[in-house]
């Protein structure tokens, strides 16, 4: 973690404007996350949450705005270079290599690592025991929730400094969700910034340091997890009461 400037956010996207070639989806979104922080993004479907995540990761060109990592401008960097720079991302859909075995999926997570990955893999297996059992099975043959676990496991394998998760708990059972959140707390405690989109919003805001509410491609609310949970308007419109 050399060269980290202490004051500013680890990862930040400011004034992000852009879309998929047609009308803009993001109309000036600001998101930032500091080292060791868990940041949760919530919002209605189609609000642009996933788009914002993709923009942060360079999977989608921005018309305006800039993305910085540790203060350095990375707006022009390709996704795989962002991985090298220490970012990790679990997309919302298409997040496993369906034809590769569970173990290979995890190995792909450690693709850029030169050191021994087996320890991290053991860590992932202990977090998601079912994966160890199924490690030779192609990920495409797993149940929906198991796939989700593979996806998160793959990202953990990178040991990123900025970990971005797009709805990591969609389709996973309550017990696994709890364990996952526990793990996320553990990981955050070791330093990385964690940015998460969640529809299981109350549980997520519960563990979050800060939260954003996005709606129609704009920042709507922002605050600590507890503040957002306490705001009746936010609760009613975005968290399901």
């Amino acid at each position: 973690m050399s060269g980290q400037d202490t004051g500013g956010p680890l990862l930040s996207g400011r004034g992000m404007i852009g879309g998929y070639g047609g009308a803009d989806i993001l109309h000036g979104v600001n998101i930032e996350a500091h080292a060791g922080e868990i940041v949760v993004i919530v919002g209605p479907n189609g609000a642009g949450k996933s788009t914002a995540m993709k923009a942060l990761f360079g999977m989608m060109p921005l018309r305006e705005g800039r993305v910085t990592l540790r203060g350095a401008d990375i707006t022009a960097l390709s996704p795989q270079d962002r991985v090298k720079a220490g970012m990790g991302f679990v997309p919302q859909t298409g997040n496993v290599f369906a034809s590769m075995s569970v173990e290979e999926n995890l190995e792909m997570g450690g693709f850029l690592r030169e050191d021994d990955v087996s320890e991290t893999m053991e860590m992932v297996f202990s977090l998601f025991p079912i994966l160890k059992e199924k490690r030779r099975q192609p990920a495409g043959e797993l149940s929906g929730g198991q796939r989700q676990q593979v996806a998160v496991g793959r990202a953990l394998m990178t040991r990123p400094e900025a970990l971005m998760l797009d709805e990591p708990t969609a389709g996973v059972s309550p017990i696994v969700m709890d364990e996952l959140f526990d793990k996320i707390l553990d990981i955050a405690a070791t330093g990385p910034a964690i940015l998460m989109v969640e529809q299981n919003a109350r549980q997520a805001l519960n563990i979050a340091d800060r939260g954003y509410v996005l709606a129609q491609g704009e920042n709507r609310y922002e605050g600590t997890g507890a503040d957002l949970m306490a705001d009746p308007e936010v609760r009613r419109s975005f968290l399901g009461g």
Partner: protein
Amino acid sequence: MSAGTRIAAAPASLWRGPLLYAGMAALLIGVGVLQGWNVALSILCFGLISAIMALGVNIAWGYAGIFNVGVMGFAALGGLAAVLVAQPPVAEAWAAGGAGLGLSLLAVAVTVAIIVLVRARMARGAARGWVTAALIGAGYAAARAAFDPAVDAIEAVNPASQGYLGGLAAPIVLAWPAGGLLAALAAWGIGKTALGLRSDYLAIATLGISEIVIAVLKNEDWLSRGVKNVTGLPRPVPYEIDLQASADFVARAAALGLDPGEASGIAVKGLYALMFAVVLGVLIWLAERALNSPWGRMMRAIRDNETAAAAMGKNITRRHLETFVLGSALVGIAGAMMVTFDGQFTPASYNPLRFTFLIWVMVIVGGSGSNWGSVLGGFLIWFAWVEAEPLGLWLAGGVVALLPEGSAAADHVQAGAPHMRMIFMGVILLTAMRFAPRGLIPERTGR
């Protein structure tokens, strides 16, 4: 947030299609002026035929995502129909082998009947399988026993010019629907067995089946004279020399300032073009109507996601079969038209590059899923296929002119000149695709 229409959903400029068609027409006119109207009309005629084939492929691929790489086989079956419909019957051959053939057909029918009966009576299991296999074997032997001598007898009848059963001596225009029907029948049989396959696997299966069709046509002389070819098929239009012999025609040609030879060619090809255009017009109207109806929507849904379509009550197998048969029928019609225009049926001339892949090129360059696109692709690629040759020669000539005369390099380029055709064809194809990766007239999505 504004309504989110994206490029993909936005229809391409309304003018694009008409402009491209106008450009195509201009190309043909250019050929007419520079190389003669006979050349232009002959390109037009084959363009029309190619367009129908491309339309057929587009129906199966663009509508339903069926990767049919057996176009050649269906085109050849259409051609066979022309022989079977239009050629005079060979009475001697029927006398020599007709009975035998009938007998073998009967043997097949009886075998099938027995097998059906037996299978209905017996319980599922290994025994039933063996009995069926034995029955098939016995049936095959019986059929062959009647078939082989009959075929020998037929093929012995005046082998140099006949040696086959001949046809019905009906007007050859009837061969067009007949060709469609024959191709449709074959497609039905093939579809029943192979349509369950996933795209690439289906592709190789259809490719294989088309090779088998050609092998049969090449080797079963009693049916279509095999590699000995059937030539001199009757025509639906007058012969040029008859026109040239008609004083009336010559006079009229002279009035137009044309020489009778050229005028007769133009008249004949013009008539053909007219007939082909009518067929294409009807077919494209039917195809457009279908595509823009709920049927078309359903087909696109199936193409997008078969699992979901099945869960939404669509009978995937039936629909696939339906489109496959329809598309193949179109290819069959075009195949019959082409043999009519050529005036001969030559099984050995069916090769996959020309009759399958070139048609696919037409569809993709034109725009898969788009009827007007495929038709345009048919014209354009055919045009390129024919004109690539003179263009290539011209280009080689240019290169040679730059090299020292009589040098080895110049000789080498000169010798290679005919092969410029291929390079040119490739360049035209790649250029067209580069500027319109989704086809010249792309599929309209999101109505």
